[in-house]
C-alpha cells in the first residue's frame, strides 16, 4: 500500500447514514433465500440418517420414484465422483460432497442420504417416507476425548495428514505445535504456576434464516442458483465441482442473507437442488427446517483443553503452555491450529508452547463460527490468568497490561506485530466507569482479552459512473452487517460526492470477478480497500478528461471535494469541474468511466478487544444474570460507527449464549437431543442488559483509511470474561461451558 493513499481527515467516513437496504428490510420486501420462486418450480426435501454412524447397505428409491407427485430422486450416485466423465474429487471438495450426500456410510445423525423433488413442499416431505434405506449401525463416538481414546470407533481410516505424530488414533487428523523458548525453565522461574483443564460444548451459529436455495440446471449444462450464502463464488466453484460442470456455466446470485456468522461459508442443499434440477429439467427450491439446520449444518467445534501458566508476584508471565483438542465432526477441519495460535496471542511471552489437535467424531461437519477456534482457547487461558490474579492479589487489567503485546512484539504464533491496539483497549477498560462501579453482594466482575487474525482474501470491486454523476458500486461480498453502507461511505470519500448518490449492490458471479467469502472480518477491510482503489481508478480518468478539456497535462489536475481542479497556480486558471459535469459528456470525451480493482490484500491487521462483565449468580437456582457488559475493541477506523457497535454487541451476546446456555446435547444413541430453538436456547431480549461499547481507533497501516475488521473478535473474550465473573460471584472456578444452572448448582455443591 502506497503511503500517499493514507487518509486521516474524513468527510463521509465516520458518519452514520441510513443503510441502503433499510427500507426493504423494514417493509418486508427484502428477498432472502426462501423468498424466490420460479415458473414450473418443484420443491425438494432431503432424507437424513437417524443414526450417528452406519453403513448404508442399500437405498431403494423405487416407491418414491413411482409416486405421481415425485419428479426426481437423487442419491450419491448422481454426483460427480460417480459420474464416469468426471473422475473422482479430491481434498476439501470430496469432503464437502461426502457431507452434502453420504457415500458408503452415514457419519452423523442428520447426514443426508437421498433427496426428492416433488410438486409441493408437502408432497416432497411425504415422499421421503417412501425411500427405504437399509443401515448397518456401527459404534459411534461424539465426545472429543473419547474420540481420541485407543478403543474409539474409527470414523474414516486414512483421513489424517502428515502433521499427525505416529501412534495417534486415526480420528486425530491434524496436529499443530508451535512456540518458542523453554517453558519448563519458565515455569521454574514463576512464583505461582496454575494448570487446569477446560471443556466447551459445540454451539451453533444460530442464524435465524435457515439455508434456502432455488436451483435451475438444464440439460444444456447452464445453471442458475439463488441462495443465502456468505460467498457465492465459493458456492459456484464448489457446486460446479460436485456436479461435474464448468464453473463459469453456473451463475450464482446471493440473496439477502439472514445471518451467517461463518455457518454459510460452505454448501449443503445447493448441490442437491442442482442435481435434482438437472435430473428433471425444472427449477427446484429447497428450504431447510430448523431441525435440519441444527442436525446437519454448522456448529462450531467442541473442545477439551489443558492450560498451564506461570506468573511472578509482580504479574509477569514467565511461561505458558496449552493443549487444545477440538472435535470438528466427521470430517477434517476443526480449527485446533487456530485455537492454539490465538490462545496466547495477546501476550508478550518469552516461553510459550501451544499444541492443537483436529479430531473427528460422529457429529456434523463443523463450520466456521466468528473467529473460529479462538473463543475456546481464550476461555481456558484467560480463566487461568484470572485465577493467578486472584491468588496473587493482582488487578486483572494491570496484569494484562504488564504482559500485553505491542507494536514489535513477536506474537506467540510467530510473526512480529505491526501497529496494534491491545494496550489502548486495556487502558480504555481501566478508565471506563464500569470498571470502578461497585458490585452488589452475589455479583462478580470478569475481564478478558481476545485476539483474532483478520483476513484479506481475493477481492474484486467495480464502480461505474452514470451520466448524471451518480455512481453504482458492485461488490462481491454478501452484506452480512451493513457493508453496503460502509462501501458507499468509502466510495463517497474518494469521489467527493454524497453517500446518497452511490448505490452499492452485491453483484452476482456473472457480473464481477472472483470474490472470496464474507468471512475473516474481511469485508470492510478488503472490499473496502478495493472500493477505495476502484474509486481512485475512476478519479484518475475523471482527471484525465478534465485535463484534456483544459489542454493541460493530467498530472496538473487534482481531485478535490468532488471536482477536478488545477493542481496549482502554474497549472492554469480554470474553474473546478464537478464530477457530474465530466460524466455528462463522457460519451463523447472517450467513453464510459468506470473504476475497478482486483487483488488479494495482505494487510488485514490483527484485532484485539477487552471485555468487562458483571454477573450475578442465584445460589438457589444456579441461574446467572448478566448485569452489565462493556465491549472495548480496536476498529482501526470505524467507517460506520453504528454498525461497528452492532458487531461488538452481537458478538458479545453470542458469547453470552455460548457461555451460559447454548450446547449440543447428544444422547447415548448419538442423536442430537435439542434440535429446535426451544431446547437450544439462544439469548432473548429479556435475558440481557444493554451492551455498552467503546470503539478504540488505532489505525491499521495496511488499509488506506486505517480499517481493521471488527466482525469476529467480539466473540473471543465473552466466554472467559463471563466465566471469570461467574467464578468470582459464585466463589468457585467454572471450567466447563455452558455454565447452565445445573452445572453451577453442581459446582456450588461440590464447593460445599
Amino acid at each position: 500500500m502506497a503511503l500517499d493513499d493514507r487518509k486521516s481527515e474524513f468527510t463521509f467516513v465516520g458518519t452514520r447514514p441510513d443503510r441502503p437496504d433499510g427500507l426493504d428490510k423494514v417493509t418486508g420486501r427484502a428477498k432472502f433465500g426462501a423468498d424466490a420462486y420460479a415458473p414450473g418450480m418443484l420443491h425438494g426435501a432431503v432424507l437424513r440418517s437417524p443414526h450417528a454412524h452406519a453403513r448404508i447397505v442399500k437405498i431403494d428409491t423405487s416407491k418414491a420414484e413411482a409416486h405421481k407427485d415425485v419428479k426426481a430422486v437423487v442419491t450419491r450416485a448422481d454426483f460427480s465422483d460417480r459420474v464416469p466423465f468426471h473422475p473422482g474429487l479430491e481434498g476439501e471438495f470430496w469432503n464437502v460432497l461426502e457431507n452434502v450426500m453420504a457415500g458408503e456410510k452415514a457419519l452423523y445423525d442428520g447426514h443426508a442420504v437421498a433427496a426428492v423433488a416433488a410438486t409441493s413442499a408437502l408432497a416432497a416431505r411425504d415422499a421421503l417416507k417412501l425411500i427405504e434405506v437399509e443401515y448397518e449401525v456401527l459404534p459411534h463416538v461424539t465426545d472429543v476425548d473419547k474420540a481420541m481414546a485407543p478403543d474409539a470407533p474409527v470414523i474414516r481410516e486414512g483421513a489424517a495428514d502428515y502433521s499427525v505424530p505416529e501412534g495417534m488414533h486415526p480420528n486425530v487428523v491434524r496436529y499443530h505445535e508451535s512456540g518458542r523458548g523453554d517453558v519448563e525453565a519458565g515455569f521454574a522461574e514463576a512464583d505461582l504456576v496454575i494448570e487446569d483443564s477446560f471443556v466447551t460444548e459445540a454451539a451453533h451459529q444460530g442464524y435465524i434464516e435457515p439455508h434456502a436455495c432455488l436451483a435451475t440446471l438444464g440439460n444444456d449444462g447452464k445453471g442458475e442458483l439463488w441462495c443465502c450464502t456468505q460467498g457465492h463464488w465459493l458456492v459456484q466453484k464448489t457446486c460446479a465441482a460436485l456436479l461435474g460442470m464448468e464453473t463459469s456455466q453456473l451463475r450464482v446470485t446471493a440473496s439477502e442473507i439472514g445471518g451467517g456468522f461463518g455457518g454459510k461459508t460452505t454448501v449443503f442443499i445447493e448441490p442437491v437442488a442442482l442435481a435434482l434440477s438437472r435430473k428433471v429439467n425444472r427449477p427446484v427450491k429447497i428450504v431447510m427446517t430448523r431441525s435440519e439446520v441444527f442436525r446437519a449444518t454448522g456448529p462450531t467445534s467442541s473442545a477439551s483443553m489443558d492450560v498451564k501458566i506461570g506468573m511472578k508476584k509482580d504479574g509477569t508471565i514467565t511461561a505458558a503452555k496449552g493443549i487444545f483438542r477440538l472435535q470438528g465432526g466427521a470430517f477434517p477441519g476443526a480449527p485446533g491450529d487456530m485455537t492454539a495460535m490465538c490462545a496466547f496471542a495477546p501476550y508478550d511471552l518469552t516461553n510459550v508452547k501451544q499444541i492443537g489437535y483436529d479430531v473427528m467424531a460422529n457429529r456434523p461437519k463443523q463450520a466456521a463460527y466468528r473467529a473460529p477456534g479462538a473463543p475456546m482457547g481464550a476461555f481456558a487461558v484467560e480463566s487461568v490468568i484470572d485465577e493467578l490474579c486472584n491468588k496473587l492479589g493482582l488487578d486483572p487489567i494491570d496484569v494484562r497490561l504488564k504482559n500485553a503485546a505491542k507494536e514489535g512484539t513477536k506474537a506467540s504464533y510467530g510473526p512480529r506485530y505491526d501497529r496494534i491496539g491491545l494496550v489502548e483497549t486495556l487502558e480504555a477498560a481501566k478508565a471506563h466507569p464500569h470498571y470502578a462501579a461497585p458490585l452488589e453482594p452475589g455479583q462478580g466482575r470478569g475481564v478478558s482479552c481476545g485476539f483474532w487474525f483478520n483476513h484479506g482474501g481475493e477481492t474484486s470491486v467495480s464502480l461505474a459512473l452514470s451520466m448524471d454523476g451518480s455512481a453504482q458500486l458492485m461488490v462481491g461480498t454478501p452484506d452480512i452487517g451493513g457493508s453496503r453502507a460502509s462501501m458507499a461511505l468509502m466510495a463517497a470519500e474518494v469521489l467527493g460526492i454524497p453517500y446518497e448518490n452511490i448505490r452499492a449492490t452485491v453483484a452476482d458471479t456473472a457480473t464481477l470477478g472472483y470474490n472470496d467469502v464474507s468471512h475473516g472480518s474481511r469485508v470492510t477491510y478488503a472490499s473496502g480497500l478495493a472500493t477505495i482503489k476502484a474509486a481512485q481508478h475512476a478519479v484518475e480518468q475523471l482527471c484525465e478528461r478534465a485535463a484534456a478539456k483544459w489542454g493541460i497535462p493530467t498530472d496538473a489536475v487534482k481531485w478535490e471535494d468532488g471536482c477536478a481542479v488545477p493542481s496549482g497556480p502554474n497549472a492554469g486558471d480554470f474553474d473546478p469541474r464537478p464530477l457530474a459535469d465530466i460524466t455528462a459528456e463522457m460519451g463523447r470525451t472517450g467513453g464510459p468511466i468506470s473504476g475497478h480493482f482486483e487483488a488479494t490484500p495482505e494487510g488485514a491487521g490483527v484485532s484485539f478487544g477487552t471485555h468487562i462483565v458483571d454477573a450475578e449468580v442465584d445460589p438457589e437456582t444456579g441461574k446467572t444474570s448478566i448485569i452489565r457488559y462493556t465491549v472495548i475493541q480496536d476498529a482501526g477506523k470505524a467507517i460506520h460507527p453504528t454498525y461497528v457497535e452492532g458487531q461488538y454487541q452481537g458478538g458479545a451476546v453470542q458469547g453470552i449464549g455460548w457461555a451460559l446456555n447454548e450446547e449440543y446435547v447428544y444422547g447415548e444413541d448419538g442423536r442430537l437431543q435439542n434440535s429446535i430453538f426451544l431446547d437450544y436456547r439462544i439469548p432473548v431480549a429479556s435475558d440481557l442488559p444493554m451492551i455498552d461499547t467503546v470503539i478504540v481507533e488505532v489505525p491499521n497501516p495496511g488499509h488506506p483509511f486505517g480499517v481493521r475488521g471488527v466482525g469476529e473478535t467480539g466473540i473471543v473474550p465473552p466466554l472467559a470474561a463471563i466465566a471469570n465473573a461467574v467464578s468470582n460471584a459464585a466463589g468457585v472456578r467454572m471450567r466447563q461451558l455452558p455454565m447452565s444452572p445445573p452445572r453451577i448448582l453442581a459446582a456450588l455443591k461440590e464447593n460445599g
Partner: protein
Amino acid sequence: MSKLHVSTNVNGDDVEFLCDPRETLLDCLRDKLNLTGAKEGCGTGDCGACSVTFDGRLVCSCLMLGVEAEGKQIETVEGIADGDVLHPLQKKFIEYAALQCGVCTPGILVAAKSLLEKNPNPTEEEARYWLAGNLCRCTGYDKIIRAVMDTAAELREAS
C-alpha cells in the same frame, strides 16, 4: 388431499386462496399470497420471525393453519407502513440500525407495534419481555430496544 377455499382479509385487502388443510398460515401468506415478509425461522413458534396479528392478536403464523384465516383480519409487516409513509417504528429501526441481516425484523416490527398499541409507555423491562419471543442473532437486542423505547416516547409526544 383436496384443497380448501379460504376467504380472508390481509392488511385491509380481501383475498382468497386454496390450501391444503395441513399448510400453515405462514405458508399460505408466503406461497399463496406472495407476502414473503413473514419468515420461517423455526416452524415451532420459538423465533417469532413469522409474527403477524390475527384479529388484532399477536401470533406465530407458523403455528396456525391457513384454513383458520377464514373470515379473519390478518396484519403483516407489509401492512405496517401507510402507503409511502413509514410507521415511526420502521423509521426508528433504520435510524438506530436496529437490524443487521434483517430477517427477524418483520416479526419484531409486528410484535413491537402490537406492544405499543397495548402499552404506549412500556418500561425497558416490559419491552424486553414482550419481545422475548422474537429471536435476533445479529444485534444483541440493544439497538432494537432503544429504537422501540424511542418510538414509544415519540408516539406519546405526538398524541
